């Protein structure tokens, strides 16, 4: 239990640092943040409205320290003010609408890549002198290290534009009403294939190599030799004896991969015009929508921290020794 408590306190501290950084970010930037903030809205809003918004963001009055306290308060009460880009919708609402899609892309592709990668890694370690073990890992290493944006563009071109197999934009067919109908779910799945596929392709090599390297180490252990000598099936030796132990270092790598997966999702969303956080973030940047940008960075940090904590829980479940 103390392990999890220690992790929790670490995540909380990290979160506080992230908030502070988030607070400082627009204030560190060249130029007056208020001017930048309202440059886009100039002429579209009347002055009274602008004054009201300024007050809402706490840019106007109070010392630096007071502003900081006010910001922290606003974060914990989820009252982040309205978006400039989509005035008068609340920033929290805008983020809330697109976060599920990004989570779906990032975590979905991570899980699929993990399952495929760990299986390939296990098998290629077990058959490391055969054709599979000799050919597949280098091939995947090559393919997986294309930059996110390039993999996305190549899939976009070949499967979307040339073959016209799959849709090129949006999270689902805009003519459908969201709901739990078969048609809607099918449309979501169809729209997710290309973006998710490109992320899986980029993510997979990490798992293949993590698993393969760990597996090769474990395969040298005596109990594996013993299991083989007993005449157990190679499936049983591979998964029950070696795989179970080799997966521990892989579990530690998950925590790191989560951050990468979210970052990758942001790139992929832009290429496939997927309506997630990445798309909104870019629009917010173009419009200098500071509240929206801050909220997105904050939600990304939170998502990564929560996902890390889940990875910790997973680790405790896999290796009970760690919780002592």
């Amino acid at each position, binding site marked *: 239990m103390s392990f999890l408590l220690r992790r929790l306190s*670490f*995540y909380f*501290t*990290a979160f506080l*640092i*992230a908030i502070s950084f988030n607070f400082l*970010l*627009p204030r560190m*930037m*060249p130029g007056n943040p208020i001017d930048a903030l309202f440059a886009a809205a100039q002429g579209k809003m009347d002055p009274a409205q602008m004054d009201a918004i300024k007050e809402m963001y706490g840019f106007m009055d109070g010392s630096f320290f007071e502003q900081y306290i006010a910001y922290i308060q606003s974060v914990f009460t989820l009252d982040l003010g309205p978006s400039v880009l989509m005035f008068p919708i609340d920033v929290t609402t805008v983020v809330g609408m697109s976060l599920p899609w990004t989570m779906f892309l990032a975590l979905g592709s991570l899980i699929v890549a993990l399952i495929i990668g760990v299986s390939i890694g296990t098998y290629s370690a077990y058959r*490391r*002198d055969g054709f599979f*073990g*000799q050919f597949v*890992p*280098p091939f995947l*290493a*090559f*393919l*997986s*290290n*294309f*930059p*996110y*944006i*390039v*993999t996305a*563009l*190549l899939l*976009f*071109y070949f499967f979307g*534009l040339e073959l016209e197999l799959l849709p090129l934009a949006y999270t689902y067919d805009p003519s459908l009403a969201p709901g739990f109908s078969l048609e809607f779910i099918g449309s979501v799945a169809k729209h997710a294939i290309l973006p998710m596929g490109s992320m899986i392709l980029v993510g997979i*090599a990490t798992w293949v*190599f993590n698993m*393969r*390297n760990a597996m*090769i*180490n474990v395969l*040298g252990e005596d109990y594996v030799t013993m299991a083989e000598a007993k005449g157990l099936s190679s499936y049983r030796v591979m998964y029950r004896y070696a795989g179970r132990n080799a997966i521990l270092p892989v579990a530690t790598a998950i*925590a*790191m991969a989560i*951050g990468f997966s*979210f*970052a*990758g999702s*942001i*790139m992929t969303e*832009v290429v496939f015009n997927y309506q997630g956080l*990445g798309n909104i*973030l*870019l629009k917010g*940047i173009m419009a200098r929508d500071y509240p929206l*940008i801050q909220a*997105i*960075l904050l939600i*990304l*940090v939170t998502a*990564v*921290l929560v996902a*890390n904590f889940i990875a910790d829980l997973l680790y405790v479940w896999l290796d009970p020794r760690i919780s002592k």
Partner: protein
Amino acid sequence: MNNSIASAPNQQSQFRQTCSTVWMKCKAFFSGNPPAIIGVSLIMVILLGALFAPILSSHNPDKRVARPHVAPNAEHILGSTRNGRDVFSQVLYGARKTLAVSLFAGIIAMSIAIAVGVTSGYMGGKVDEWMNFATNVFLVFPQLPLLIVLAAFLGQVGSMVIAVLLGFTSWPWGARVIRSQTMAIRNKEFIISAEVMGESKIRIILVEILPNLISIVFGGFLGTVIYAMGAEAALGFLGLGDATEVSWGSMLYWAQVSSSLYTGAWWEMLVPAIALALTGGALALINMSIDQVSNPKLKTGPHLKLWKKMNHETEKRRGLV
């Protein structure tokens, strides 16, 4: 005066010996290791292309030299962009910028990673606690979104600013790996004996510890270069870099702006994309091969032979065989 003349031949023979050891090592590294051969030759081609860009390119990459979106032909081997630039010349010159940014970012990141990782791992105690905490905090921050925001706020930043930003945001992973490796060798006999002999901490770190980290540092360096290249391409594609510079990222940006894929001018988008893909893939193959040579446990089939051969060379050099 006399001294220098006397030592000259000696130096020369020593130099020759070093050369031959390096040669033997290279030969051993490549023999029976197709991924390494493919990776290194690809990188060589790309590096040579970047180096001899002025000789190889047929046109000025910044000038309008053709009509918009000319398909690949004899005059313009890889066609022209929407703005009438020669894609072949652009991809050669773009390689310079992109590679320079990625290498520079890799050097910055690994320098910080070594400084933090080795200090943290060697010193232990409170120093380690704080440095490890900082590393972990940086590690959980989503770097790419942060980078996008920073680049956007700083306004169309030049490629060197991007390199610095990339370098300063991508060190934590390397620092973590280097720290754990330093901790692993920290209590080995040769370190302890150096301490007992009263060597200074700086000397122990530089002379005793660092040489043992070379393969990890190089692996981390290649990993960072691959990541930095992807990030540079991403920032360029989003139009957050300086679009007037010719880099693979800015080429992607212009191809996107001119919707070249939709108008059938695939070459404008696919050429820089494939250049990025090949470079990333080739670097990964090299990284993988180095990993297998430096970590004997990972050796498989041909590599086992390779390891035996290298071992034999070492023993021969030591006069054991």
